[in-house]
């Protein structure tokens, strides 16, 4: 009987991904709270950088895992990316429809992009970690 995959030690991808999600949510709420006026750009950019750094760390950590079910990871991530591209597209449409413009639109779009990329990584990692290679 092989060892359960529950006991496998892996980097804290879910926790870091959740922290990135908190940063993205905080950034979007911070910006949305000021609508239709513009939120202070420096704070929004700082939150954006934190979220991007967390997601980059996650991608780096995932890429270094040995004996990982990459086929399953890519399969799940791909389909989640399609689904969340639709959701992110709808949100972006609402931003543009509501006359969000300039730097605020750029920041919100980048946050939306981070959100769109983060969810597939979290789902794909959670599935692939319990797949035998």
């Amino acid at each position: 009987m092989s060892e359960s995959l529950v006991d496998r030690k892996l980097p804290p991808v879910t926790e870091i991904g959740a922290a990135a999600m908190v940063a993205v949510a905080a950034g979007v709420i911070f910006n949305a709270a000021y609508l239709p006026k513009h939120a202070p750009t420096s704070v929004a950019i700082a939150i954006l950088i934190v979220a991007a750094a967390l997601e980059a760390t996650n991608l780096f950590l995932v890429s270094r895992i040995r004996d990982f079910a990459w086929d399953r990871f890519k399969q799940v991530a791909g389909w989640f990316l399609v689904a969340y591209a639709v959701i992110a597209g709808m949100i972006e449409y609402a931003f543009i429809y509501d006359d969000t413009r300039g730097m605020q639109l750029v920041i919100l779009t980048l946050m939306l992009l981070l959100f769109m990329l983060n969810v597939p990584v979290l789902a794909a990692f959670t599935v692939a970690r319990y797949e035998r290679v």
Partner: protein
Amino acid sequence: MTTLAADAPVAAPFEIVPRKALPIVALVLLGVVVAIARDARWGLVFCHVVGGGLWTAIDLFVGFIVGPILRGMSIPARIEFTKRLMPKMLVLMPTIVTMTLAAGFQLARQDGFLDTSNPRHAWVVTSFLVVGVMAVVALAYLGPANVAVLFELRKPQPDPRVVQKLMQRFVYTAGITGVMQVATLVIMTRLVS
């Protein structure tokens, strides 16, 4: 050999994402886009109230009624129930949430609640925070666990420890989701009073 094969649990094939439901999802999302594009007040109210009602009711019902019942069932019964419920939830909940939030944001804009000078602006920002907490819980923990459980149950011999570990996420977060949903009810009724 025959005995072993007969004793081994045989996983019946099932769809992780029920494809038959996807046209309905597309139709609902299209309806939301049309309601936003046309600034259709009734359409937006319909999407927000129906979606919000379903979201809150399903969250509370599954978390506090179905969850405890499920925990009291035998393992095979739990597996059978999960295989039927989870794929539907995987399609249903993101659709309902997108419909509710997209329509709600437009209603808040129409009613001027997004304006920082509006006396009810703080309630809207509070609702953003509540949604933020629920989004983190749902997207970082529950959604991935839901999909991973379904992949595990599709294996010829699912590992009960994996399923149990993933299902624990639902138990641990039920309280947070419950509090957030009750907060949503308070905020939304306060906003329209």
